[in-house]
């Protein structure tokens, strides 16, 4: 118990003193998870919307795959990406092993299915007659999708936050492909794991509190936006 308070104290102290290791890890976390989430949004939201609204063959299968992707085990994704970017792997010449690019790739694979799957359900939650009305108004498929995406923005925002939350707090993949290199690929979660295995539980809690603080701040912002958008 007192470990937790110690962690809180240490978190505050390290934030107030702008502790360099902490800042590095926090910024590495934000950069990698932010990039991975952005990529997932750019590719996953349109794909999810298309999956949710489309009527093509194999759609059910793709949806099930996307939903499965929400449960991709980070260690497995990490291993998978590692096998690709190791020197012996097909993408070995990229020399991405132990780099942020590798972390972003792995996190992208983790975040994208979540965003695709939730977006698909989000756009489906709109009255099907609304889709017909948009078609009637002369919308192309793409325009319809764009409009319905905007219409279900509250849910999509949640999808994005879920994706971001999943990757910024995951460790298995980032550790395996990023190597937890201090000042570079050491992100908050891998730092927490390291401190934990060092037995520095207070420091681990401190890092965890910083991580939670970041996630909370972002969520408070989006929750506020969500609820503001909600009709009374």
């Amino acid at each position, binding site marked *: 118990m007192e470990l937790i308070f110690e962690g809180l104290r240490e978190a505050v102290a390290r934030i107030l003193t702008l502790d360099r290791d902490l800042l590095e890890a926090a910024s590495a976390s934000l950069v990698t998870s932010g990039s991975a989430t952005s990529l997932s949004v750019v590719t996953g939201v349109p794909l999810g919307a298309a999956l949710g609204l489309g009527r093509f063959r194999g759609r059910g299968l793709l949806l099930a795959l996307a939903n499965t992707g929400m449960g991709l085990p980070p260690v497995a994704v990490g291993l998978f990406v590692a096998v690709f970017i190791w020197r012996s792997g097909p993408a070995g010449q990229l020399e991405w092993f132990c780099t942020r690019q590798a972390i972003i790739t792995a996190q992208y694979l983790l975040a994208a299915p979540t965003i695709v799957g939730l977006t698909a359900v989000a756009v489906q939650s709109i*009255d099907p*007659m*609304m889709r*017909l*009305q*948009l*078609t*009637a*108004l*002369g*919308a*192309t498929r793409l*325009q319809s999708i764009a*409009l319905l995406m*905007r*219409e279900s923005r509250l849910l999509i925002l949640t999808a994005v936050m879920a994706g971001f939350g999943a990757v910024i707090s995951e460790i298995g993949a980032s550790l395996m492909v990023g190597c937890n290199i201090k000042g570079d690929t050491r992100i908050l979660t891998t730092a927490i794991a390291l401190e934990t295995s060092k037995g520095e539980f207070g420091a681990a809690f401190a890092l965890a509190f910083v991580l939670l603080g970041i996630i909370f701040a972002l969520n408070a912002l989006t929750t506020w936006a969500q609820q503001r*958008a909600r*009709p*009374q």
Partner: protein
Amino acid sequence: MSGTILEAEDFAVARGGREVVRAHELRIREGEALAILGPNGAGKTSLLLALATLLPFAGRLRFRGSSIDRPLAFRRRVAVAFQRPLLLDRSVRENAALGLALRGVSRRERDQRAHDALVRLGVAHLAGRSARTLSGGEAQRVSLARALAVGPEILFLDEPFSALDAPTRETLVADLARVLRARGVTTVLVTHDRDEALSLSDRVAIVMGGRLRQIGDAASVFATPVDSEVAAFVGVENVLPARVVSVTEELTTLRVADHLVEVTADVPAGDDFPLLCIRPDDVIIAREPGPTSARNALAGTILRLEPIGRRVRVLLDCGFPLVAHVTVRSARELGLAEGDVVTASFKATLPHLLARHRAA
């Protein structure tokens, strides 16, 4: 009125795996206003949406003579206002301009045109409001404005005025009729309001039980329905079994129960037992048999008086049941009461005859 703008043949629409409406042939003429009437669930909406290429259909559909290969291009030349106003969670202004935005019209122009449409519908003052906060009638007006704003060649309207207040509806119907006619816009509108159908449309189509039953100019459909179901639906409450007694050049004499009735209508080919159809509006009630231009005058007892709004429905027993509609004023002036014996008369020119065994 020139040629045919939209033409459907062997047209059938299925929903939920069930055919819900079918039309053997339906030609919509350029510039006309066609009203579709029919009972709830008859398939009016399904027909309308399929004509607008919004539901899958079987059969052929031609726009200005050629089949519709690129539905998107077609849809951008028409507009649809749905039965429910389906507005996006945005401002009223954005909703009204949506069709134009989708067509890539510049912001300035679309704002102007959306504004004009909103003004026409009397909701320009709501332009900045979120569409989610509109009242039922306000929302319906915005939905209509959105359809008008794109300047369509065909306007498909599904019960467009159902939520509008009475004065607005009256002025709007007149106003719209004028504008659409002036611009030569073809209008297909589903409505439940016979008055609306009469004032707004050139022709009327009756859809019942998933079939296009009758189509023709408004007055004639209301006056001469093709079968007893349509007759009942368009308000011809009196559909009486009759027997042909004699046919001359000018007049047909029929026996209805114990009475002889003379009509000018043609007897359906080879049917000696037709149905005599008389609109309740065409039956005149008087205290005395007195002199009247009406050929047919029957004595009857008032069984029931039912006020329907500003009219009174009079159910008479003339040996057979006969329904007449009179204005509240007439009923008052005549001092009608249940049990009174009165004279019901109708001109020989007004009734029409239906084959009794017409296939439904």
